[in-house]
């Protein structure tokens, strides 16, 4: 079977909205669906993807070793995830500056990796400076992550404009940390509010869940545990990346028993 050869940057503008957690979990979910996946940590100087994936003790070479030819090929720097098999991490250097990685060299590297894998997912640093430009220019597709907070949505809008200026037209949105009870009381922006404001295609929704903290503590992506509520949301995003016609897993559709029944018999259609 031919490789999908897709390169995707996960970005947000604002920091702390869950880019790294989403990269780790969607990447792991794709690997569980039997795709060959490489996760690239582009947050040079402030790496964390290794920690979320629980691979921090296995790093020998990093991104700058590959760029500066200190290892034979990028393959030597890839860390294979023993739990999943076809999931690999290319870690960011911890003692370098973002500007130390030239834009064109990074793009060349991503192109090279892409040829042998289904997905290369780049975890982009916060901000719209060098690290963002480097990651965004190297990837063909982009995912923007936002939470329902005003500052995060505003920054997401700037990032979307930046991506458009780079000629990327298929940018998709993940809304992270939706608090159902607050939306119901109109104390938090709804999915509709956010989409109306940003005017962008929705890829998926992740509800707020304290279990993320525990999974980070353990260095084990949530999706490795199929019994956890968040599994289906990350898995849905992974599936929708391959087939956009799959409906979005909407936490607001869970509702009460009547609504569940209605959606079961097809009376209530998912809006998206």
């Amino acid at each position, binding site marked *: 079977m031919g490789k999908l050869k897709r390169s995707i940057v996960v970005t947000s503008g604002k920091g702390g909205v869950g880019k790294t957690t989403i990269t780790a979990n969607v990447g792991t979910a794709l690997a569980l669906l039997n795709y060959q996946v490489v996760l690239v940590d582009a947050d040079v100087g402030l790496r964390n993807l290794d920690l979320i994936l629980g691979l921090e003790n296995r790093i020998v070479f990093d991104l700058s070793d590959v760029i500066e030819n200190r290892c034979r090929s990028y393959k030597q720097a890839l860390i294979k995830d023993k739990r999943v098999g076809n999931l690999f991490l290319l870690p960011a250097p911890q003692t370098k500056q973002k500007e130390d990685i030239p834009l064109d060299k990074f793009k060349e590297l991503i192109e090279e990796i892409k040829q042998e894998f289904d997905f290369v997912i780049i975890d982009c640093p916060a901000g719209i400076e060098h690290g963002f430009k480097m990651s965004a220019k190297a990837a063909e597709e982009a995912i923007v992550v936002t939470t329902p907070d*005003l500052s995060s*949505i*505003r920054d997401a*809008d*700037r990032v979307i*404009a930046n991506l458009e*200026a780079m000629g990327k037209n298929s940018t998709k949105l993940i809304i992270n940390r939706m608090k159902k009870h607050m*939306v119901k*009381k*109109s*104390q*938090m*922006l*709804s999915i509709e*509010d956010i989409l*109306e*404001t940003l*005017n962008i295609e929705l890829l998926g929704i992740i509800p707020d869940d304290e279990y993320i903290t525990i999974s980070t503590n353990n260095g084990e992506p949530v999706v490795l545990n199929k019994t956890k509520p968040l599994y289906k949301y990350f898995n849905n995003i992974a599936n929708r990346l391959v087939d956009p016609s799959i409906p979005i897993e909407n936490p607001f559709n869970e509702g009460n028993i009547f609504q569940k029944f209605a959606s079961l018999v097809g009376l209530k259609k998912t809006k998206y």
Partner: protein
Amino acid sequence: MSLPSWLEELINIFKKEKKSSKIAKERLQLVIVHDRSQEKNSTIEKLKEDLIELLSKYRDDVDTEEMDFVIKADKHRVSLVASIPLKTRATTKL
């Protein structure tokens, strides 16, 4: 002592208090429209330049300094609202 949440909700209905998500949405859309209009080489800026050129073919009194373009969004549609003032005074016959 705090009130039970259902009672709070009920009071809010009678107080006709604006829901905070509604306030958030209005504030957010305002800053975003502003952010977008500030963008260098934004399509709006280009449109403005082209329109000035076009308008000047027909009128020589377009007040280009005061011209304003904004994208407004409501529930149903997104629209481009243009305000093109003329230097000719309102009392003058057009």
